[in-house]
């Protein structure tokens, strides 16, 4: 009996050990789990819809921009919230920015954590802000981890496609 189709492809392919189909499946499963766990919301689907042949790296570009932005903001927030006297308006301005970009990219948990954070800013609650910042960081780094895996899979898929064409 000949081996099933998928493993035949796996065995015969000269390039990466995983078939294109398997890579795509892994990526889909990862993204779906992120939706289910609340890391991503509908907005991310919008981004996926906007990616096409004319703009194949769109999602990757947006994710990268988001992560750069987020990390810059988290660094500033850490400094600001650490001060003896916290400048709540400045803190709020940064959290507002992060809320905006997380909303734009579909980073649901991060966005929700930012909304909570802003509450504490409004109340001029330093302890609340310290805590809220940790919650935001927690959600951000969880997301960042999964985004990294997502981008790696995307890259492998794209490379696979271009090798196929050559």
């Amino acid at each position, binding site marked *: 009996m000949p081996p099933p189709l998928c493993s035949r492809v796996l065995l015969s392919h000269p390039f990466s050990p995983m078939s294109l189909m398997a890579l795509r499946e892994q990526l889909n499963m990862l993204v779906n789990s992120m939706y289910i766990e609340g890391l991503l919301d509908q907005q991310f689907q*919008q981004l996926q819809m906007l990616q*096409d042949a004319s703009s194949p790296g*769109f999602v990757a570009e*947006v994710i990268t*921009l988001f992560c750069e932005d987020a990390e810059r903001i988290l660094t500033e927030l850490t400094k600001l919230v650490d001060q003896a006297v916290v400048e709540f308006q400045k803190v709020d301005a940064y959290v*507002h920015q992060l809320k905006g*970009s997380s909303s734009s990219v579909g980073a649901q948990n991060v966005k929700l954590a930012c909304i909570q954070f802003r509450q504490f800013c409004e109340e001029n609650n330093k302890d609340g802000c310290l805590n809220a910042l940790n919650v935001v960081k927690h959600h951000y780094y969880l997301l960042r981890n999964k985004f990294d895996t997502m981008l790696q899979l995307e890259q492998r898929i794209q490379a696979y496609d271009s090798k196929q064409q050559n």
Partner: protein
Amino acid sequence: MAVDAEAQFHVLAVDDSLLDRKLIERLLKTSSFQVTTVDSGSKALEVLGLKEDQTSTPALSPEHNEIEVNLVITDYCMPGMTGYDLLKKIKESSSLKDIPVVIMSSENVPSRINRCLEEGAEEFFLKPVQLSDMRRLRPHILKGKHKEQQLHQEENSNTNHIIISSSNNNNMSNKRKAMDEEVLSERTRLRFSSSSLNVI
């Protein structure tokens, strides 16, 4: 060269967030608009050919140093010149006041929305802006372009178009997720058609 029957309109998008600029650019390009993005209100005015302290463009022909912009879409919250400030400058300029302006904001603040609509904004989009929102842009561009034609038509036909254009003051028709403007004008037209039939 292929002849494209549908004109490609040029949208100027203003947002201080790089991420949001990327997003709006992609949304607009996907919807067949030509796009220019800038990161501030003052840069937007430069593109439009207006210096911050001017109220009208210098006496140079449009081909000289500015490109034709058919619509401006701007974020509300920006450092320095806000979207509202930019809107005001455009509406106060004799040469730019007819360019439709759409405001975007991540916050749903009714007083903010009303302020913008009263200042002459065509519409207010809640962020994150969706692909479906792009469909609402073309009518605003076409409305301005066909103003001259409509003026002549209005004199002959019933008052349909006058009612529709004054609906800019009606907040309901301009808020996102409210009735689609085209649907609203359709219904208005029908309403007035039947009432004029009754009069006859």
